[in-house]
């Protein structure tokens, strides 16, 4: 079979498709197009919520840092929350920027590069914003207890801090180990097993586009 023979097969498909799909366009009428929501649109709103959440963390982090500027361990918790809030806003903003740069009417290679970059930043953000939660919840809980009940857990219940910290370290290590193990099992993109799979997939997409661009 040659490429031109494939054209004959394509024409056969063309006739069948026309019959099979003659009625399908009805669903695009009666205003249904306006209601359809793309995945990018959903991601866009998810990032808006993420940025608002990050803003709230920054606000509470700053307020708390000012209030506890003379208590080193509470100041450290506040700065941790502030830093995480900043990271959340930055990743949310960068992702929104990437989404805004995707115009599906532009040439395929150009847009697929942008989509690949979006996948990469999304995968990186998931990792950078997910792992710190093993420790962030402790900082938030400590600051909340101090603000609402006037209890400084570092002083009144240091065992809780030690146990929570140890659990956080164990959880962090276990998550990292799980990600590594899952990557090692993945045969789809076998290189660079230390990189999380989602990131490697995004990298794979971009490499595929680069290969296509080259003569």
């Amino acid at each position, binding site marked *: 079979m040659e490429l031109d023979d494939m054209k004959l097969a*394509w024409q*056969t498909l063309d006739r069948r498709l026309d019959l099979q799909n003659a009625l*399908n366009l009805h669903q695009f009428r009666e205003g249904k197009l306006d209601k359809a929501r*793309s995945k990018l649109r959903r991601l866009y709103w998810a990032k808006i919520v993420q940025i608002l959440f990050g803003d709230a963390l920054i606000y509470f982090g700053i307020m708390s840092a000012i209030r506890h500027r003379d208590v080193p361990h509470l100041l450290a918790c506040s700065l941790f929350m502030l830093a995480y809030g900043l990271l959340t806003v930055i990743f949310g903003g960068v992702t929104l920027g990437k989404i805004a740069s995707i115009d599906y009417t532009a040439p395929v290679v150009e847009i697929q590069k942008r989509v690949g970059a979006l996948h990469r930043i999304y995968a990186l953000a998931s990792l950078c914003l997910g792992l710190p939660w093993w420790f962030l919840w402790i900082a938030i809980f400590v600051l909340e207890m101090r603000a609402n009940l006037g209890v400084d857990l570092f002083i009144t219940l240091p065992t809780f801090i030690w146990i929570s910290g140890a659990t956080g370290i164990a959880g962090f290590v276990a998550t990292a180990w799980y990600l590594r193990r899952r990557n090692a099992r993945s045969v789809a993109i076998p290189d660079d097993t230390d990189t999380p799979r989602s990131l490697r997939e995004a990298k794979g997409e971009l490499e*595929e586009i680069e290969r296509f661009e080259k003569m």
Partner: protein
Amino acid sequence: MTAQAAMATIATAARAQFHDLLERHRKIVFKVANTYCRDPHDRADLAQEIAAQCWRAFPGYDAQRSFSTWMYRIALNVAISFVRGAVHRDKHSVALDEELHDVATDSAPESDERVRELYRFIDQLDALNRALLLLYLEDRSYREMADILGISETNVATKISRLKQRIRADMAPDNS
């Protein structure tokens, strides 16, 4: 006529114009969906997503330019992004036999065999080469393919030539 009523009239006219163009070029939607999705439900979702994206982009469409080129760009961009989505990644790797239920109706056995081979070959290609093959099979000029894909005409010619070689190698009697 109030400003609101005038806006509504313009919106209705735009919608009618879009539906007319979509009706005339609907095969683009279905062919792209068919090239990238094997599962009928995914295919329907993709077709709807393509039509929805076209409708969203329609206000920016320049009537001086070819509607089919504009539509191919959107359809291919949406389709490639759709199949690369992590949620759908696994669902698309359907056994080839499932596809045959779809294509093996009302047709001569010889053309069925050709269609099967065509699908088998398409399934081996990566997303971008699928786009190139689809445009070639649609008899688009090298210039239009270059415009849609965003690569040079020379690059299109080189890639088509490589596709031909690959087909010859894949479809050789020893490999079938």
